[in-house]
């Protein structure tokens, strides 16, 4: 429907009272697109690393996520096993292939499989690109190492987040992604900002946690 395209574009130009932009007209637009200049960033994120971690944790808890901190990656399997027991969940999970070097012999009760999530998988375990302190938000991306279904299909989503991945604002998180993207040469298909477990207010505006996405979001912060 290129006729539609031409008609819409010429309609816009006519409405704006000008023809197509020439190089001079396009220059500020190119500059804006390449400059990535930020607008106002909330002052609440003007904190040191310690402060950002604290803000992230309190904001994430405020939106019904649960958070625990562990000393190192070796402590994650046992933390996950404890969480599943405590929530009365089966000791089975699907993990992102990117977490393949997780040593499950440290938590022998857990049966872990790597790959994408399907029905009726109960628990998904993934890494994240960043944690945004501003609102307790996680940034996850799709990729061969991190299938998106893990974030949405299982009713329980556990995220492993390194302490040094916690940043202040959404823009900081996106900058980390831009760096990764430049290295990989391409933006991932999906980038998911996730703030707490799924919820709805569609029935008489009473908040229900757990609708189509996960009912539980558990964040394990790894100190180093």
């Amino acid at each position, binding site marked *: 429907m290129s006729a539609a395209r031409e008609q*819409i574009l010429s309609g816009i130009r006519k409405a704006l009272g000008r023809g197509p932009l020439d190089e001079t007209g396009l220059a500020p637009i190119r500059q804006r697109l390449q400059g990535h200049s930020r607008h106002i960033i909330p002052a609440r994120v003007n904190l040191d690393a310690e402060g950002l971690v604290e803000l992230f944790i309190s904001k994430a808890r405020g939106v019904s996520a649960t958070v625990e901190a562990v000393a190192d990656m070796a402590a994650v399997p046992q933390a996950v096993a404890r969480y599943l027991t405590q929530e009365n969940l089966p000791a089975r999970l699907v993990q992102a292939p990117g977490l393949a070097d997780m040593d499950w012999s440290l938590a022998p009760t857990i049966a872990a499989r790597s790959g994408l999530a399907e029905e009726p998988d109960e628990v998904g375990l993934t890494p994240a690109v960043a944690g945004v302190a501003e609102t307790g938000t996680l940034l996850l991306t799709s990729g061969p190492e991190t299938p998106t279904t893990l974030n949405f299909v299982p009713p329980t989503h556990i995220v492993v987040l390194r302490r040094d991945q916690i940043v202040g604002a959404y823009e900081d998180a996106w900058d980390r992604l831009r760096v990764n993207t430049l290295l990989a040469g391409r933006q991932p298909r999906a980038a998911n900002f996730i703030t707490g477990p799924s919820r*709805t207010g569609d*029935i008489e505006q009473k908040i229900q946690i757990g609708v189509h996405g996960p009912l539980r979001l558990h964040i394990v912060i790894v100190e180093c």
Partner: protein
Amino acid sequence: MKHHPTSAKFPSNARTALADPVLQGALRNLKKGFPVKRAEVVADLPEFEALRDVARDIKDHTLNHLDAYLEIYEANVVRSGGQVHWARTAEEACETVMTICRDAGARIVTKGKSMVAEEIGLNAYLDTRGIERVETDLGEYIIQLRDEPPSHIIVPAVHVTKEQIGETFRAAHNGLDPNRDLSEAREITDEARDRLRQKFFAAEVGITGANFLVAENGSSIIVTNEGNGDLTQTLAKVHIVVASLEKLVPTMEDAMAVLRLLARSSTGQEFSVYTTVSNGPRRPADLDGPESYHVVLVDNGRTAMLGTENQDMLRCIRCAACMNHCPVYSAVGGHAYGWVYPGPMGAVLTPSLIGIENSGHLPHASTFCGQCEQVCPMKIPLTKMMRHYRNQAYASGHGSKISRIALGMWSYLATHPGLYRRVMKIVARGLRWFAGRRGSLSRVPLAGGWTEMRDLPAPEGETFMERYRRERGRGPGQ
């Protein structure tokens, strides 16, 4: 079923709504909910007011360079492996979606909540062409089963009680225990989750709207709480994004600035649960995600608004703050407005899109209290725009004969100050005399519409000018 516009019948729609006790209960809930939460989170973000100016400027800049940004956006979608389809009209947009569905061999199509899909009548279009369309937002699913249009742009089933939803589910969901408990929101939500799960996995095509289209990288962004939009677009083979032209922003930084306003203004959350940035189809090594990605760019009257007094309305991000704070919406609900967009934003957008002749009453559905403008994150001058439509309706001869005569008399009086003062003296004293001891009037000539539902408080008997002279005579400082 196709829902035809009934905006021209606003007065009788409103009367029905005011007499509906179930609706009135739901609307009272709404008034206590969103505005209170919004006020809390806005107070928690000292930058909120300054961000409103930023957001307005971002959209104004984009709209004034819309052609250039659209071309850049399109090139970036193609670069990421997606396709862009341009649609001038609702019909063209629906045809495009249907063609993609047919090419994908689609039988089941899941759909996330999209106001522009409602606007272009996509639901009826798919339903009458052999597609099993499944709404996946809980509120949309409820009204789909009830065959009703949405009554609010964020909580589409706000007018339905949980008892009614329980009955609807019992009637629609075969093969379950007829005596199962559906008395609480929890059980209802769980049943919807189970039902829709099967559909997410079975659907060949998933359709979502977009809150933003980003020129910088050709991404579309949706903002949701339930996770239905993500399952819709991740599990189907084909993802179709239906979006109107004005969703465009230049960069991710621009989107993030507006995102800081969106959820706060809308549901009173600091940030929605899921903000999802989608960029083309699955990459070669990906394990999941759609195999193809299409964007249907819908004009349907937008370019005609550009460069006119209606352009400001194209900044709207569909947050619903205006209707959540509107005394008229709070009294009559969304269905009374008779088309897709209710509340103050609907009173302005509806005449822009379907013509003032089909929506003549909507710009009058306002007390001009200005609350909508106070809370609009994009600083859209809603009352000014409604006034513009009122003028247009008057100039083109709409409105009742009585109101036209009354307005004619008023405008003559108001432009002849000497006569105005003399007449007002008589009117003020006359109304006071008629009101007697009650101090209010239940019937006033030419104002039957006003006094039908309420009494008019009578004047004190003295006009403002008389009082002003008297008070000023006392000198300053008293």
